[in-house]
Structures are given as structure tokens and as C-alpha cells.
């Protein structure tokens, strides 16, 4: 659906060139929610804006829906942008227009909708985002969450195939963030629209993204299935995002375990395995005793997962390890 090939982007600032993107290659599949996570200045927004050519790459190609759009200009460019909706951190609604007029605006610009069609579509969209009764208000009279819902309705007005979200929830409180993420996720399912979501919040990725790319210093340092990337982070940047969320300092924790006897292992379970009575079975089969040092059971997108740190004592610990591996549990030995 969206493909970046060997993308380079440099900005000229006061005669010096600043590299914003380096050797970026990426594919976003149709219908998926793709996350791009990275710290401030990593190049996330720049990458996102290449898709609708608000920015152009210094080198490399951008493909959308099988077409090489890198050199699009004029009407071709404007038509491409109409196929792509975008929402922003600061909503970017027109303060001089009512909610209704804001949502109608892209359709008016397109010039292909009649007045009646626009009116009906606006009602439909506002109902979908839960703002049917706010149509005549001005943006300044709305809360942040409501503004972002207007932004979403506006982005969907011309029935785009792609929705770009640039830090769409970063200015919202946790509860509102959750409801807006849910809305984006629902829309993705209902309409089959491809979503690219830029964020620096791990939680946003976990809730809605099928796949994720981690960016650092203008490069993609890690990418793949959200669950894979976050259950088994490889790059230090990914690590920092995962552990920032869990509020855990691994070294500190290791010190805490110093006086705990036995072998310390970290188990990662995914999918249905999460809910199986694995530990009970294990104790029965191998005579190993376990105590739980820390743990969490949660979801990544719709994949349930569990992560448990155990200490194993007594019985046949090596056999227990083999049993675990056999039942699709990822085992990491923290202390022999």
C-alpha cells in the first residue's frame, strides 16, 4: 500500500545540511495499522509527511497503492492528497469555521460533491465520531478530545484509503487518548482503511498497531510485528520504550533478586498459551517448585500475552526448561 525505498532526506539549515532520514526502507500493507515510534527529532513526522508529499525525499522513491508518486505535481498531487486523510497533534481545525463547515471543507475543496451530498456525509461522519449535537459549534468551544474527533471526521470526509496520524493523541489526557485510539482502531476495522500512526507513546502502539517501526536518529532501527518487537526488543531504543512503560529498571530488579534462591527465568507467553495452566502442569510433571517474582498479563493489539519472572527450585529444573520450550513459551534465563 505504502512503500518507502532507500529514502534520504536532508534539510538545508543556514547553509548546513541536516540529515533527517537515512536509508529508510519500509512497506505498509493494505488495511493494517502501522506504528512509527521514536524519540523527539527521530524523523517520524518527516517520514509520515513523505506519504502525502508535504515533504519530498532528497533521494529514494515513495510508492502509494502501487504507483510511484515521488515526482507527482499539479493535479496528480492534489488528487493523491485527497485519497489520504491526516490528523494532527494540535488538531489544526479552522477556527473560523463551525464543526460542520470544518468537516465539509475537504469535500468543498474536492469540488466533486453536491451540496446535498456534503450535508448528508457531514451528518453521517459527525454521528460516527459521536459529535452529532456539536455541529454548529466552533472549535474553540470544544474539548481536546472532541476537536480530535472533528479532525478524524474531516480526515475521513473524502473516503480516503489511508489515514495518517501525527501524534494524534499526544495532547490528550489518558482517558481521552484511549477513546480516540479506540475510534481509530474501530474505523480501521470498519472501513479497512490503512492507518499509519506516528507516536512517542508506547501505549498507543500496544493498543492499536499491527506492526511497528522504531526510529532513532533518522533511521529505522527495528521493525516487525508489534508483539514481536515489544516482547523481544533488540535495539536499545526499543528497550527504552518498553521499559519506560513498565517503569522498571532491570538492573535494580536484578539486585532485588540477589537473595532469592533457585534459577531465575523470564517466561513470555503469547496468544492462547497465555491462558493455559502452564505453571501448574509444570510443577506436577517435573516436581519443580516456582515462585513468581514479577509478572504481567495484557494485550498487544488483540494478541494476549503474559510475561512472568520466576524462580525455579527443586525437582528437575532442566527438564522444566525443556517442557516450557516445547509448549511455545519463550524462556530467557536471567540467573543460572
Amino acid at each position, binding site marked *: 500500500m505504502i512503500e518507502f525505498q532507500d529514502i534520504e532526506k536532508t534539510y538545508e539549515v543556514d547553509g548546513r545540511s541536516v540529515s533527517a532520514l537515512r536509508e529508510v526502507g519500509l512497506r505498509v500493507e493494505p488495511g493494517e495499522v502501522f506504528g512509527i515510534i521514536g524519540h523527539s527529532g527521530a524523523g517520524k513526522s518527516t517520514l509520515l509527511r513523505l506519504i502525502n508529499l*508535504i515533504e519530498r525525499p532528497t533521494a529514494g522513491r515513495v510508492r502509494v497503492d502501487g504507483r510511484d508518486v515521488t515526482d507527482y505535481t499539479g493535479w496528480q*498531487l492534489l488528487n493523491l492528497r*485527497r485519497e489520504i486523510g491526516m490528523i494532527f497533534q*494540535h488538531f*489544526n*481545525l479552522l477556527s*473560523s469555521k463551525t464543526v460542520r463547515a470544518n468537516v465539509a471543507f475537504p469535500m468543498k*475543496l474536492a469540488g466533486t460533491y453536491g451540496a446535498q451530498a456534503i450535508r448528508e456525509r457531514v451528518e453521517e461522519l459527525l454521528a460516527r465520531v459521536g459529535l452529532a449535537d456539536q455541529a454548529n459549534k466552533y472549535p474553540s468551544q470544544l474539548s481536546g478530545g472532541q476537536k480530535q474527533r472533528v479532525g478524524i471526521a474531516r480526515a475521513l470526509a473524502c473516503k480516503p484509503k489511508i489515514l495518517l496520524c501525527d501524534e494524534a493523541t499526544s495532547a490528550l489526557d489518558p482517558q481521552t487518548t484511549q477513546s480516540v485510539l479506540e475510534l481509530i482502531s474501530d474505523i480501521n476495522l470498519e472501513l479497512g482503511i490503512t492507518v499509519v500512526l506516528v507516536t512517542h507513546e508506547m501505549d498507543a502502539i500496544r493498543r492499536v498497531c499491527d506492526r511497528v517501526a522504531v526510529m532513532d536518529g533518522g533511521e529505522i532501527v527495528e521493525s516487525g510485528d508489534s508483539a514481536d518487537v515489544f516482547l523481544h526488543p533488540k535495539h536499545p531504543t526499543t528497550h527504552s520504550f518498553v521499559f519506560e512503560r513498565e517503569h522498571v529498571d532491570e538492573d535494580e530488579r536484578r539486585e532485588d533478586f540477589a537473595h532469592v534462591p533457585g534459577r531465575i527465568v523470564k517466561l513470555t507467553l503469547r496468544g492462547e498459551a497465555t491462558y493455559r495452566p502452564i505453571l501448574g502442569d509444570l510443577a506436577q510433571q517435573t516436581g519443580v517448585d516456582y515462585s513468581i517474582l514479577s509478572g504481567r498479563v495484557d494485550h498487544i493489539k488483540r494478541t494476549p500475552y503474559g510475561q512472568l519472572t520466576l524462580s525455579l527450585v527443586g525437582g528437575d529444573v532442566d527438564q522444566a526448561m525443556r517442557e516450557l520450550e516445547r509448549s511455545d513459551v519463550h524462556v530467557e534465563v536471567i540467573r543460572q
Partner: protein
Amino acid sequence: MSELLPNVRWWEIGVASWDTVLMVGGSLLFIVLLGLPLGVLLFLTGKRQLLEQPALYGVVSFVVNVLRSVPFIILLIVMIPVTVIIVGTSLDVAGVIPPLVAAGTPFFARLVETSLREVDRGVIEATQAMGASTRQIVLGALLPEALPGIIAGITVTAITLVSYAAMAGVVGGGGLGDLAIRYGYQRFQTDVMIITVVLLVVFVQLLQMIGDRLVLYFSRR
């Protein structure tokens, strides 16, 4: 009343007031018609804007600055030949409008440029992302978003024009300024002077009040 103000002929005051209204209103109309597109041009061709054109911006900006730095009274005199060509006379209301337009247009254009620059860049970017052409961005997003600022600019320009129009009286342009100079200053009729000044103050207050009301009405922030 006539004992307090022995020299005031109300009919003449009325005519002069009406002339002032015509001078300010007439020139304001042309200033808005010319200055708005000029301000948009300055904005669009400016640094990091939609149609960045350093050379064009430089030239237009220079001409605007030159016109703005010439004192109005000098512009008034220097422009006499041009004024005669345009409206056939350098006297009366018609004769004052061309120099007023020449002085007010660059002034207003800068105010327009400034208020356009104050429009949130994010809004421009969002409009761009919707597939709007530059023309659509200007007409559909920039101007409506900058409207309160532009109206405030029109108010400031109109008030400046009131004092410019009064100055035009010196060159025989008519209006309240003319009256103040001829009777109040040259013939020492202080009462006429006071009346004209009071009328000018009222006029300016009125303009400011209407302008403020409109700005408030169009501000949705």
C-alpha cells in the same frame, strides 16, 4: 449657540465633514482592493511560504518600504502631476484620493501580510494535506482565518486616513482639515478650529468602535 461660536457656519461644516467621509471612504475602498492582493503576494512569496520567491519579495518589499517612508505631505505634492493625469484635477475630494491610496496601500498591505503570518502553520498544512490548491488555501483557509486581523488592519488604516485627509486640506483638498487651516489657523477663528477637531475625534472614535465590534464578531477563538 451662535453667540458661543460666532464664526461657525454649520452648512459649511456639514459639507466639509461629508468631504472628509468621502475622502476616507473612497480611498479606503481602493486601498483594500489593491492592498489585500498585495499583502497576500507579500505573504506568499516570503521566506518559507507557499510560493517562496526571494527576488520578487525583495522588489515588492522595497517599493512598499519606499512608499511608506515618504512623508505624506511630500507624497501629496510630488504626486500632483500623476493625480492630474488620473482624475483630471489635484483639488477637491477626487484630487486627494490618489495620494491617499498611494500612501495607504503599502501600509495596509503590510498589515495584511502580518495578519496572514499569524495564521497557524498547522492549519495551512492541514489544508494542504486535503489536496487544496494554493488558490484554495488562500481563499478557503488563510483569508477566513486572518479575517479578524485584516479587519483590525482596515480600522487602523481608516484612522490613519482621517489624519492624512486632514493634512490634504493644506493643498486645497477640502474636508475638515481644509476648514481648520483656512478659518481656524489663517483667520484665527478658534471656534471653527475646535469644532473641526471635535468632529475629527468623533469620527476616529466611531471608526475604532465599529472596527472593534467587527473584529469581535469575526473572532472565533
